[in-house]
């Protein structure tokens, strides 16, 4: 997953505001997400080589919920830019791009991956959380936080490929996880300067580890699901 922070200057120099103020107030950050293997963007449905020579892996579906996106600055002060649920879907370019206005330099990003237990507890919701989006378990209640499906040499399509459906919200099985991903200290995104940073999500490494600990399937809330979510930060980093 790449989060590209593109602090561009959207100047709307309205009368009465001094020039510098309008830069500060109206810096727009474009955020876009993408997914990588071996440094390359993945394409859905297309096999790509893995470290193991001769082996390939393919991702057919990659979707997950993100909530509470917050940018924070070097002194730790944070500003939640919006308070909405997003269904990130690798097949839907529109779901990978965000645009925020900020008024202080940005050091990193915080977000919840998955749907928290309070929201789950309250039942079903509309919008991105509408159960028609296919991110709700049917045989039991609760949102699916994260779905990754595809095939590989070790989980061949002929045997159903691999399926990781990760979720759960009951006590002890709560599989939503908040992440905080920072740039290096000296690399904050200043206001008014065009910056691109990426929140890289290393799908190949994630899949390798998922296979090692889970085999080809994870389809229900469990301790493994909780661990899966907690380990995700190993594969996410910010890159400028």
């Amino acid at each position, binding site marked *: 997953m790449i989060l590209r922070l593109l602090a561009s200057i959207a100047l709307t120099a309205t009368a009465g505001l001094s020039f510098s103020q309008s830069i500060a107030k109206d810096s727009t950050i474009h955020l876009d997400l993408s997914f990588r293997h071996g440094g390359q963007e993945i394409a859905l449905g297309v096999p790509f080589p893995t470290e193991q020579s001769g082996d390939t892996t393919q991702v057919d579906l990659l979707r997950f919920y993100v909530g509470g996106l917050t940018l924070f600055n070097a002194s730790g002060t944070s500003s939640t830019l919006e308070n909405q649920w997003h269904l990130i879907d690798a097949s839907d370019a529109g779901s990978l791009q965000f645009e925020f206005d900020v008024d202080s330099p940005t050091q990193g990003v915080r977000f919840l991956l998955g749907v928290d237990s309070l929201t789950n*507890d309250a039942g*079903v919701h509309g919008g991105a959380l509408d*159960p028609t989006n296919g991110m*709700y378990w049917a*045989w*039991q209640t609760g949102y699916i936080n994260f779905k990754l499906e595809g095939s590989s040499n070790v989980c061949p399509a002929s045997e159903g490929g691999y399926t990781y459906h990760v979720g759960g919200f009951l006590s*002890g*099985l709560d599989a939503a996880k908040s992440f905080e991903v920072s740039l290096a200290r000296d690399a904050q995104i200043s206001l008014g300067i065009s910056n691109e940073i990426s929140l890289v999500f290393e799908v190949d490494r994630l899949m390798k580890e998922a296979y090692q600990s889970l085999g080809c399937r994870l389809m229900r809330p*469990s301790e493994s699901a909780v661990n899966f979510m907690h380990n995700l930060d190993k594969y996410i980093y910010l890159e400028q």
Partner: protein
Amino acid sequence: MKILYTIGILLSGLVLSQVGNYEVVIPDGWPEPVHDFKNNPLDSATVELGRALFYDPVLSRDNTVSCASCHSPYNAFAHTDHKLSHGIGDSIGTRNAPALFNLAWQRDFMWDGAAHSLDAQALGPIEHVGEMDSDLASIVKRLKSDQRYVAGFSASGKELTGVNVLKALSQFQLTLISADSKYDRVQMNQDSFSVQEAKGYKLFQQHCNSCHAEPLFTNGKFASNGLPVDENLQDVGRYAVTLKKEDSLQFKVPTLRNLKSTFPYMHDGRFKSIGEVLKHYNEGVIFASTTANELREGVPLDGRQRTDLLAFLLTLNDNAFVFDQKHQYPRSFFFPNKGSNK
């Protein structure tokens, strides 16, 4: 919510409450519902939509199965005759369909509590291959091409979306309240128990009330009442949801209201009659690590006591509820021109 209920008590004695524009009547002496009406306040238009959806096989892949196929109004919304419920293409499920009423007082749904929210519960049967084998997105598509539903949703002021279809089903089910049995009338001093029923009531309070607690006749918790595990079904109950050892073989304590209409009994429908159930409690309880303490010795009742207890249990039947027209098939929705039968 709470305030509204309280106002109801102050004003009327009868506990009335205005939730949305649908009046939920909380029977005298009952606790507050555990259902949170705030997320989905009831209104008459939505309740009627939910009623139509409940009886409409459009919810199943091939238009053959409705919710009412397994939850019949004449069986207090349970599925009788069949031990295990039958779904699409006559596939047989692994559990007996429970009765549906007084759901606002229920926190967990399904025998193992796999559903924690009534608003979300209906996705289970809709998407279950053995039940309706459909999916919510295609149902929404179908409903959008049906003028009656388009008009109905517009009358309710809600968008026709997946979440609102589920919430309509939930609203209708929340209106299914059974509180008009002989037992209830006795509690309100409008009737009295026969000598036999009164003796049965004593036995009930002594042996059964810890789990099947008055006035709902369930404490809403999970327990193991010592049924031997069915070798074929291997149903571990609540454990499948929580993955906690102590929940193994625990099932939700069912209500004992309307037993006349809800046979066969237990999560797998293994007993056809109340007599068989009492025999189980008398001599069939097996000792497993999670079997409830109060049942470990069984419930020793002689033949006469069992007859007394049975007589009491029959006072929990509520014909007014079972035959209430306003919960039945909404003919006027499906056949608006053929005379109304609400």
